[in-house]
């Protein structure tokens, strides 16, 4: 936990930063560990939103019973785990 506290202290709020020579703004999430934390939280938030969105789409447009949806998640996880299981030296 001390590491997490340290990361939180270093974390600076995301801000849009203009970069010379670039026409678009860059999302700047801080430097070093703070940036890592920021990026990680953004990714976790993105994943959670994707989950909520997928759920909403299934309920709104699909005829998939919720229990099947949970089981479908298991299949997706299994495929993901399998694809990355041997990604080691």
């Amino acid at each position, binding site marked *: 936990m001390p590491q997490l506290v340290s990361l939180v202290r270093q974390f600076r709020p995301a801000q849009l930063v203009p970069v010379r020579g670039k026409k678009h703004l860059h999302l700047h999430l801080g430097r070093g560990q703070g940036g890592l934390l920021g990026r990680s939280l953004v990714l976790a938030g993105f994943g959670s939103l994707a989950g909520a969105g997928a759920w909403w789409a299934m309920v709104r447009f699909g005829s998939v019973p919720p229990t099947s949806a949970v089981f479908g998640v298991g299949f997706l996880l299994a495929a993901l785990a399998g694809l990355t299981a*041997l990604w080691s030296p």
Partner: protein
Amino acid sequence: MIPSINPDVSGKRGSWMVAVGLFALGSTVSAAVLGAALGTVGSIVKPILPSKAAWTLAAASAFGYALHELSIFRLPRPQRRRQVPSGWRVRYHPWTAALLYGTALGPGILHYIEASTYYLVLSWAFLVGDPILSALLMGVFGFSQALPHLLAGWRVDSPEASYRTGDRVLSYRALAHRVNGIGLSTAAVLTLFGTFLR
């Protein structure tokens, strides 16, 4: 693992395809056997297991391990820190070795565990509590382990090229963990919604 296994399946395209197929066969069957065993145990304890609490715990674990995969904090990753025997590559015919490696690596519990997503797949197989569905679930895990070999080794024509390809694949290791983090956080939310918004 990818650079270690691929030299066995390098060589002529036809021979290589057979080896990858045998690897996939061994991996799928052995993982499915573990899944069936987990599903059987799960079906026995299912009547006494508080379903909502168990699925909530699974969702919380999924989110916790998502943060682990995204390097926010560390969670324990119990595993057997062993590798598959490298001697099989020289001792056996490449096809036999590919089948043996697939069988040994398929269940995932006999060697290093790279991605935490694996623990959630095991818990899913257990909580589903149906031997056939759990075998299917773990079978998907086992089969998916063969796909990176298929993709990474497609243009490999020598052991040297195989090691080079393996190094290139490993350069995406951090990305693989991030993708797992996103997948786990997605799964956590979907599971919670599926458990409580029925």
